[in-house]
């Protein structure tokens, strides 16, 4: 009797083992078959929210829409730069003291639904966004162009189509970031016919642009599938037949899937996993050029952070290179100014506050806190691109601050509640970061630290009229040399006033199969896949 059970158990185990090994050879991964060779699967942490680029602000949506749509002008993705080059507009002239932009459009371009791309379509799209105030949609538009139709801040006076292939923008005042804004993913041109046809389902069941790939299918929280656009206006592109975006929320299991060959490319690699990938000849590690900043901010309206000496002292008490080594695995550089070095107007002459605890303690004593003080540091619980391990960074700050007598209590808050907390000004010290939108310095300094940004992204509630005047002047200055001079002045003020401790400029890490060619991660965080190849 005993024997019978033992035999049955052994047989069961053997059968299972055989079944498992048997199929291992048959289809170990998805890369084996011929059809799959033309497919690229991108593994990522979260799903898109909508495929109508105008209504979203999250990178995971843009990662997809960037392949379905084109913008009037585009960033120089081939050189991983945010310089602007022609796209749907082949050329442009700027006249009337920087207030009139005339774009010549590429002829013969068709939307994926077969309707013609022309000046009327461009005007239709801009009017849709400008008149979007009531719907509360199109969040990016007022952020980048100063408001909706009827708002005083809106920089655009009118958009007109004098003929089929010409679009004229008339601005109320010169705007230096204007061209760069037009290259942003949210301002990609949709097919007016499709917008009308699908109504409020546009972006969910359909998304129609002029881009390299056509939207096929969306399984929520799972996959989005795009297929090559055979009539793409860039000759010979795209090189891949099918592009699939697959959601795998956990960074480590995504990497497991990568190593097992189930996906071809992924982002969100834990910095600590990078070292283990170096010896693997089947995989290639990519480092995205930084256009971001991670920082620790002070609420300058709260005691003792209303004292500039305290802020300067704490700037000296953060071991940035230690943080880069320990929590970014070298995939970052210590930050000096509130904007990354790749941007126009970055001031190289500013010397960072050196990590010097003695000096910090001295300054703190001068400020009236010889014994230090107690405070609270808020941090987000979820990893961000610019800060993969927020809790560890916070603890590092806690430990070095402790050495100069500043006792720090850390409170970790889930993202949505966190933003709410910061917007209301409830955090004396907080961890934060910013990923640039358009590669313009205005998008860092004005967006994050101007007094106009209090209530939105100026979580430090820092208000400085001198800085405000400089930043406003720089916005309408179209001469680059003069703009650089203005932004240099701004950075000097911010360095002295120290509303933040700029921590690092991070290089987000990606991993791909070594068979992938011509993949160039863009500093903007997302890039088109039209020129990417698979061996």
């Amino acid at each position, binding site marked *: *009797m005993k024997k*019978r*059970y033992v035999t049955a158990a052994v047989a069961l185990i053997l059968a299972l083992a055989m079944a*498992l090994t048997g*199929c*291992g050879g048959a*289809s*170990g*991964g*998805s890369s084996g078959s011929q*059809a*799959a060779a033309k*497919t690229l*699967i991108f593994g990522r942490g979260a*799903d898109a*929210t*909508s495929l109508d680029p105008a209504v979203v*602000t999250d990178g995971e949506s843009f990662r997809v829409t960037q392949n379905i749509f084109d913008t009037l002008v585009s960033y120089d993705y081939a050189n991983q730069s945010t310089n602007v080059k022609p796209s749907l507009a082949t050329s442009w002239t700027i006249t009337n003291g920087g207030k009139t932009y005339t774009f010549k459009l590429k002829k013969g371009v068709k939307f994926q639904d077969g309707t013609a791309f022309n000046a009327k379509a461009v005007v239709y799209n801009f009017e849709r966004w400008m008149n979007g105030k*009531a*719907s*509360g949609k199109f*969040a*990016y538009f*007022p*952020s980048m162009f100063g*408001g909706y139709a009827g708002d005083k801040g809106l920089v655009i006076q009118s958009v007109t189509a004098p003929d089929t292939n010409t679009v004229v923008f008339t601005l109320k005042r010169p705007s230096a970031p204007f061209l760069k804004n037009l290259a942003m993913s949210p301002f990609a041109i949709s097919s007016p016919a499709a917008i009308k046809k699908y109504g*409020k*389902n546009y*972006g*969910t069941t359909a998304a129609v642009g002029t881009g390299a790939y056509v939207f096929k*299918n969306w*399984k*929520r*929280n*799972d996959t989005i599938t795009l297929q090559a656009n055979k009539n793409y206006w860039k000759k010979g592109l795209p090189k891949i037949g099918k592009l*699939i975006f*697959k*959601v*795998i*929320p*956990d960074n*480590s*299991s*995504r990497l*497991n*899937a990568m*190593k*097992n060959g*189930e996906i071809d490319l992924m982002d969100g690699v834990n910095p600590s996993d990078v070292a283990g990938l170096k010896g693997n000849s089947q995989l290639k590690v990519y480092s995205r050029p930084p256009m971001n900043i991670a920082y620790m901010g002070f609420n300058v309206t709260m005691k003792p952070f209303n004292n500039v000496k305290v802020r300067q002292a704490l700037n000296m008490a953060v071991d940035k290179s230690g943080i880069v080594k320990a929590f970014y695995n070298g995939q970052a550089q210590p930050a000096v100014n509130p904007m990354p070095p790749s941007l126009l107007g970055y001031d190289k002459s500013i010397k960072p506050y050196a990590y010097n605890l003695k000096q910090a303690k001295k300054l703190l004593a001068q400020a009236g806190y010889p014994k230090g003080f107690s405070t609270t540091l808020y941090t987000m619980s979820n990893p961000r691109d610019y800060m993969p391990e927020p809790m560890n960074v916070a603890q590092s700050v806690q430990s070095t601050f402790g050495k100069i007598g500043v006792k720090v209590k850390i409170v970790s808050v*889930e*993202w*949505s*509640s966190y*933003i*709410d*907390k910061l*917007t209301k000004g409830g955090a004396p010290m907080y961890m934060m970061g*910013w990923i640039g*939108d358009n590669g313009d310095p205005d998008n860092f300094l004005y967006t994050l630290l101007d007094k106009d940004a209090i209530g*939105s992204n100026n979580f430090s509630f820092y208000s400085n009229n001198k800085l405000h005047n400089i930043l406003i002047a720089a916005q309408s200055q179209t001469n680059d040399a003069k703009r650089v001079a203005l932004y240099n002045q701004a950075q000097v003020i911010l360095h002295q006033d120290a509303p933040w401790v700029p921590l690092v400029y991070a290089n987000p890490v990606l991993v791909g199969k070594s068979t992938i060619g011509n993949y160039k991660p863009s500093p903007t965080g997302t890039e088109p896949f039209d020129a990417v190849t698979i061996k």
Partner: protein
Amino acid sequence: MLSYSIKRLLMLIPVLIGMTLIVFGIIHAIPGNPAQTILGTKATPEAIHNLNQALGLDQPWYIQYFTYLKNIFSGNLGTSIQDNMPIAREIWPHLAATIELSFVAMVIAVVVGINAGIISAWKQNSALDYSAMILALIGVSMPIFWLGLLEQWLFSVKLNWLPSIGRLDIVSTVRPITNLYLIDTLIEGQFSQFWMVVRHLILPAIALATIPTAIIARMTRSSMLEVLKSDYIRTTKAKGERMGLIVYKYALKNAFIPILTVIGLQTGLMLGGAILTETIFGWPGIGLYVYNAIQYRDYPVIQSGILVIAFLFVMVNFVTDLLYGLIDPRIKYR
């Protein structure tokens, strides 16, 4: 039994209404503004205000709640804030993914758990008993997160036996009929696809089954030990009946009520609690659906998602109660 069933079903209504009230209260109490979360940090305060208005979130909470209740009673689960899609349509594919996974995991848990428990009881205080119970202890305490990653590392990355993520190979598709892929592939007669679905189920199902397996094994052992000591078993033994028959036929049936209770509870828990497994294995189930909704403060999805999970939970318990009567005819339903 029929009147009992109807009575029980009617009692579900106040339970579920209470449920909606609790969920509604909790999600409105936690900080975080849905419009802010949806639009992101890039949005202007004005845009946030406008979206709040458009979504009706500026209305007093009780008006929002009663609008929601009214919709539920007219069979309308609402519309997702995030993507404007009717929740009733979106929820089923996610729910089906979780049901399929939980079902397979439960089959594993029941088969392995009951057998391990029986053998432990049968061979009480033997090495077999000890090792089974130590394994059960490990199973109960093992973090699913860690176990899942370990499985992937061993069976996918190192041995290359099984896929590590998803319900299907990412490049392939199954025509969704019921959205239960095991059934859909069989209806279509696609046996190679059926096999692919099975292969994708193995690792997540094992991870999800660990804790229930261990709990069922322990419950089976203690319940069996009690029954095996009873007089009628001794009598049967004395009559010379085969031990295997005694254990599996005569003893198990009497020991089964507490085991069934545990199975019922665990099944209910699984349906809502597969979230960790779903995260690790990129499994687009109901847990992930609700989890994402929480991150985006998609109130209608959170409410309806939890309501559906709660409904399943009470239904599973209800069915368990009815099964008692089938196992033990002495149980009367009034």
